[in-house]
């Protein structure tokens, strides 16, 4: 059973991630007065990309990409999806926080190899943006860990089953709001879509990716999307015992993210950082203090 879960969980994550990508395009299309592609479109794209031949730019180019994808896949093992949580007992928050760095890092290594200025600008933006949201995110996570007195996600989830969603429990409200505010940045949707920014830096780190490489990068992107949403649902919206309900919760978060994506322009990276370090950080900090004050 555990083995099956080990295999099944990343696949499920991939599936949902790709589905979200397709649904995102569909929802965006409807807001833009059009029908949009079929939901399966990202899958078609990935099949097509896998069959194309593309040039590699060196060993690090390949390794970085694989590393990034593998890192993201591993995270999914530690994230409970409803009851499906193959390795959530063994790691906890800190492992996830650590693993979450691997994704961007792998991409950085890989696209750094391509020696395209757009890619390097994209990577620097990605790291900057990560720096931007990591600070409030860490504060939020600290507040959570302090409030629940644990670092295990499964425990946080199960504790929420008793207390209600942590977002709506008293000391964690501020942290919840802060998390909500940085969620678009973590998902990489507009107004924080600064990393890819096709109109500015030709899709940034992805600029030299073609064919199978782009397919892998797309999968990585889908996983990142999944991880971002799933983490938020687990930490703030109480997770779920039932995978279906968990999925529905994810769907709601996903729609929120897409709505934000649909109605805002992209910010400049400096504006994004300024925003992330100002309000969300302040609120998260206040939330942490609140938790510390009330919790002890």
């Amino acid at each position, binding site marked *: 059973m555990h083995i099956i879960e080990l295999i099944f969980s990343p696949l499920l994550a991939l599936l949902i991630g790709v589905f979200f990508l397709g649904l995102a395009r569909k929802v965006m299309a409807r*807001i833009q*007065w059009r*029908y949009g592609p079929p939901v399966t479109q990202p899958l078609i794209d990935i099949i097509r990309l896998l069959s194309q031949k593309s040039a590699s730019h060196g060993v690090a180019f390949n390794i970085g990409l694989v590393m990034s994808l593998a890192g993201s896949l591993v995270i999914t093992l530690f994230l409970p999806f409803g009851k499906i949580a193959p390795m959530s007992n063994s790691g906890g928050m800190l492992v996830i926080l650590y693993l979450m760095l691997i994704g961007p890092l792998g991409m950085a290594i890989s696209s750094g190899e391509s020696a395209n200025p757009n890619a390097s600008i994209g990577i620097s933006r990605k790291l900057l943006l990560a720096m931007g949201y990591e600070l409030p995110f860490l504060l939020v996570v600290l507040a959570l860990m302090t409030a629940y007195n644990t670092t295990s996600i499964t425990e946080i989830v199960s504790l929420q089953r008793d207390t209600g969603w942590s977002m709506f429990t008293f000391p964690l409200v501020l942290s919840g709001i802060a998390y909500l505010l940085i969620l678009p940045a973590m998902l990489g949707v507009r107004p924080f879509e600064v990393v890819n920014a096709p109109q500015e830096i030709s899709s940034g780190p992805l600029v030299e990716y073609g064919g199978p490489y782009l397919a892998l990068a797309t999968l990585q992107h889908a996983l990142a999307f999944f991880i971002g949403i799933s983490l938020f649902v687990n930490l703030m919206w109480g997770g779920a015992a039932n995978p279906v309900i968990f999925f529905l919760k994810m769907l709601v978060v996903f729609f929120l993210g897409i709505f934000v994506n649909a*109605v805002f322009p992209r910010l400049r990276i400096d504006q994004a950082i300024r925003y992330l370090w100002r309000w969300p950080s302040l609120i998260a900090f206040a939330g942490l203090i609140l938790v510390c004050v009330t919790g002890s």
Partner: protein
Amino acid sequence: MGKLSLLGPFSAIKFLFRKPKTLRFPFEQKETAARYRGFHLNDWDKCTGCGNCADICPNEAIIMEVHPEIKAVPENGEKNERPKLDYGRCCFCGLCVDICPPGSLSLSRDYLHIHFDPDTFVFTPRDDNADDKAFVPDEQYSILKASLSHRKRDYEGFSSDMDFALFNPDRVEMPEIPPDERKMSFIEQVTGYNQEEAVKEAQRCLECRLCEEACPAHLKISDYIKAIYDGEPAESLRIIYEDNPIPSICGRICMKHCEDACSLRLRGEALSIRWLKRYAADTIKDFKETLEQNPGSYTGKKVAVVGAGPGGLSLAYFLKLMGHDVVVFDELSGGGGIVRVGPPRYRLPEESIDKDVDYIASLGVDFRFNTRIGRDVEFEKLMSEYDAVYIGIGNTVSRSTRVENSEKCLLALDYLEQNKTDRKNIVTEKIIVIGGGNVAMDVARESLRLQNIQHTGKNTVVSMVSLEDWDELPATQEEIDEARDEGIVFNPAWGPKKVILDDFGKVKGLLCMKVKSVFDEEGKFSPTFYEGREMVIEGTMIVEAIGQGPDYSFIPKSLMEKIEFTVRRKLKVDENGMTTLPGVFAGGDIVNINMDAVTAIADAKIASEGINSWMSR
């Protein structure tokens, strides 16, 4: 500027729940606009192959391609060329549609052609009803199959609109003396273009050169009109003189086959090519000074020309330029031949004839007027003394109807000739003219003028009787209209039966029968009449103008036997204009079915080449 907001933008989310506005092509299709500019359509029946579309195309996308299966009719201005489009060039501007004189080109609302082979983009447009394979009806049409060989039928888009045509369909009106005034005297009916009018009229020319093929003499019409447009009538005259040495005459009385071929006539009025030639000839006062022509270096050869009609004059001119000695014999007192006798003054004043003749004489052509071959000089003498002889005598003898008492009638040419002298005919108050051709019109209209001069204020009438009905009258429509404007009474489709005499043997009237048909089934002349439908036209003077024939009496019998004739007693000539008598050439009305001045000029041009090579053989 409103209030900046972060939440306001979210109002856009409402469109998530509304029906998208996308047009789901190809499942839903949008009809293209009624004026859409897509691929070309060309109605081959209307298209004349004038090539204006190819000329106006900014991208050289249109080339004219010869289609041998189409019959070219140069007299009607029809070529066997049709436009071929290259959609690797076309920019769908539709200028070709706006310039198309017959209006055969239009643009359809089809626009789909996708192929990997660039050669498939070259295409000869056809009418949608003419091509069943390429144009399919609605129910078989599929937009996914659409291409140049799979198009919708009845799908015309941008088409020609005369209000926005690039050419000007209306000619500049020739200033004319009104009928009431002109019928009182022999004043010239039209007054001629002034410079402004001429340039304005010349500007209408589309330079398609259909007229040049229609013209028997192949004048470079397009070029001389262009010269008039450029304000250089002298240059224009020079171009005219290359092919036609009697512009003052032709500018007035030419039968203008060119205008029948003009592409402007198809949806408007033909260009006034004749009047423009007249303008060029009239504007230049002194031909000698302007043309600066000299006879060619003397070759020592001598040519005799019998008849100083248009053909004889032209031949003399052409031969003189080649350096031959030319002697022209004519029984009249001046040059011009039939045009001196026939066309009335109000149409062709003698001064204009003399202008052309004088210029030719000034080149050194020897004119011997008042000299009749056979009477004053023997024909054999000409043949022996000259290196070549050209017969351009034309038709000089009027035919008679030979009905009862017809000897009491006058004959047209005699009548007209006498009017040109000082002793004009004495006319009566009621005149009948038999015939429906141009000569009959001349007779009738001259008679009308004479009546008005001699019987001013009295109630006079000129009646015309012709076998042919209105739509068959051989005279040009222009003449008929003008004659009717002047008040001449027409009796078409009546045949003369008998001239009625009074007790003193004077003409009292004409008994006519109603005509059933003029020609038989084979197209031969054999009139039939309704028995019993008769009518008497009152008239105290009758002129017969039913046709003319040649007078070969000057040729001795011995030679006459060697001369061969073709149909209708026309002389047989070879491609150089030489008759069956060696060294004797002929041209003009005695050779052609088509009897007019410009054809005679064309013959003279050919004969001049023929004589030249004959003499230098």
